């Protein structure tokens, strides 16, 4: 009985804490974005109703009648605090409104564009580990060797290159010179390869070094020496005891990289004219389409929180020490 209680404490409480933290993170981003957008709509000089009307029907067909109707519909004639409460309340019900430009519901636009971004993010992320894992492992197993020095040099150079430059280089090489791949747009799966590779190279520039350092640290740990004293050969010792320990900093780093993934896809999608959320965000920002900006921002914030949650859970699963922390 008592034992069961201890066990449930051990596994449950850090889990709940992690989920609560990430839920708070998601809610906080949504609230800040909503407030920011609200402040923007009401802080701009001039008549908000007039602006919305102009965005909807176009400057030339604008009449007083339409403006007044929009003022009533959007509740722009009520006190600011009431409007704010209404704004947040609508968001809390999951109503993101309609795009000012296309007039379609924001939610359906987001659903359409999100799958392109998820595909790109996932492909880029997987590709980055396809590049970084073998390089980082071989560099970490022979620190100071040729692979180590070359990969570190290339990594520093790549990390100093903005993602749009990596993309331009890849387009020049693979699309314009060699003509192997399409340069931009999205029609077939091949169109995803160059943007994904751009994202992957930017990510791998950082993760190669993290993987290398994790492997170096684990190899010099006491438990590895002990495993070898016990008679395991180095390769078996590393497989049985090293991999899991080395994975912890690597997985933690994956979550930190999500920030880069999101910067990356906003810039990369714009460069490649790829119909994902980043492209949508930039286009809405340039068009001042506030409901769309808010919706895109919130969904990106949610994706970030979710990715962090997954990384936290993975660390909890890999590292028994973290599970024990909650029990004390």
């Amino acid at each position, binding site marked *: 009985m008592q034992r069961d209680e201890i066990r449930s404490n051990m596994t449950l409480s850090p889990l709940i804490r992690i989920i609560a933290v990430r839920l708070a993170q998601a809610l906080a981003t949504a609230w800040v974005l909503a407030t920011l957008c609200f402040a923007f709509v009401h802080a701009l000089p001039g008549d908000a109703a007039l602006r919305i009307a102009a965005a909807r029907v176009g400057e030339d067909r604008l009449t007083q009648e339409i403006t007044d109707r929009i003022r009533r519909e959007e509740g722009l004639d009520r006190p600011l605090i009431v409007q704010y409460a209404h704004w947040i309340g609508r968001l809390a019900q999951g109503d993101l409104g309609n795009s000012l430009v296309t007039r379609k519901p924001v939610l359906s636009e987001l659903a359409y564009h999100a799958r392109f971004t998820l595909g790109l993010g996932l492909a880029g992320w997987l590709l980055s580990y396809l590049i970084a894992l073998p390089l980082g492992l071989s560099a970490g197993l022979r620190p100071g060797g040729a692979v180590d020095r070359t990969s570190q040099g290339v990594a520093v*150079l790549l990390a100093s290159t903005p993602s*749009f430059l990596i993309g331009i280089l890849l387009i020049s090489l693979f699309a314009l010179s060699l003509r192997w791949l399409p340069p931009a747009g999205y029609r077939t799966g091949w169109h995803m390869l160059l943007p994904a590779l751009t994202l992957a190279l930017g990510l791998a520039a950082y993760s190669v070094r993290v993987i290398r350092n994790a492997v170096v640290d684990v190899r010099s740990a006491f438990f590895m020496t002990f495993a070898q004293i016990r008679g395991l050969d180095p390769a078996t010792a590393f497989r049985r005891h090293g991999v899991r320990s080395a994975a912890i900093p690597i997985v933690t*780093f994956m979550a930190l990289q999500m920030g880069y993934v999101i910067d990356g896809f906003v810039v990369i999608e714009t460069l490649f004219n790829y119909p994902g959320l980043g492209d949508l965000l*930039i286009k809405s920002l340039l068009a001042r389409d506030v409901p769309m900006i808010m919706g895109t921002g919130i969904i*990106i914030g949610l994706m970030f929180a979710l990715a962090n949650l997954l990384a936290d859970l993975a660390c909890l699963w890999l590292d028994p020490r973290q599970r024990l922390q909650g029990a004390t």
Partner: protein
Amino acid sequence: MSAIATLGISNNAAPLGLRVGIALIAVLALLCLIGPWLPLADPNAQDLLRTLAAPSLAHPLGTDHLGRSILSRTVHGAPRSLGIAVICVAIATSVGLLLGLVAAAGNRWTDGLIMRLADLVLAFPGLLLALLLAGLMGGGIIPMMIGIKLTLWPQFARMARATARVTLQEAHVEAARLAGLSQLHILRHHLLPPVLRQTISLATLGVGAAILSISSLGFLGLGLQPPTPEWGAMISELLPYVAEAPVQMAAPCLMIVTSVLGFTLLGEGLTAQLVGSDT
């Protein structure tokens, strides 16, 4: 934070990297200082008869799609990109350090308030907040600077708070307090040195990150507005002509990579040196 820490602790090539970093930054600083006074063409003077011209004596790096001198635009872009980055980091560092120290010294409520504020900013991935601010406020230098500073300060606040809290527990601080030395003396002689030591390398890396952010915002059309010669905006303007004008394209690209590389190498070199001297 920990990403930067992880990156910093490495390799035996640090002294070389440090020297290269210092050299790169020295050259760039010189360029920023004397660049605007060099006898170059007006960076905004258009010559529509000589668009996308190949490198010549008059325009050593060629001209862009409006016939403007690439060399002149690239040189004039240096004080903008680098200057804005340095100013942003300087302000973000001071604000971050101040808030971090207040959090470490203050009671539970101030500490909680400041740290939750930092968490709130860190809840936004990467550039998103800067992007939204710049976009909603219509681009330009002020929204961009606010956005970049806003995303940078929490890491300095967290670092200052963590370092200060550890230092305050140490014996020499206790001894100073028992010896009756003033709060100000403890702050200046016991607290600031370790905090500043950590700050220098973090701030140097921060300048590199800020240059990347500025050029990315410029590339997206949400940073400095045309016709200002800014490297990111130049690249985005030249992008449709990349096949015809590779030299013109390469100039701002190389400048961005060189300056970020310089600050990264310097920052990492400093971290390696300081970590070495601490242990």
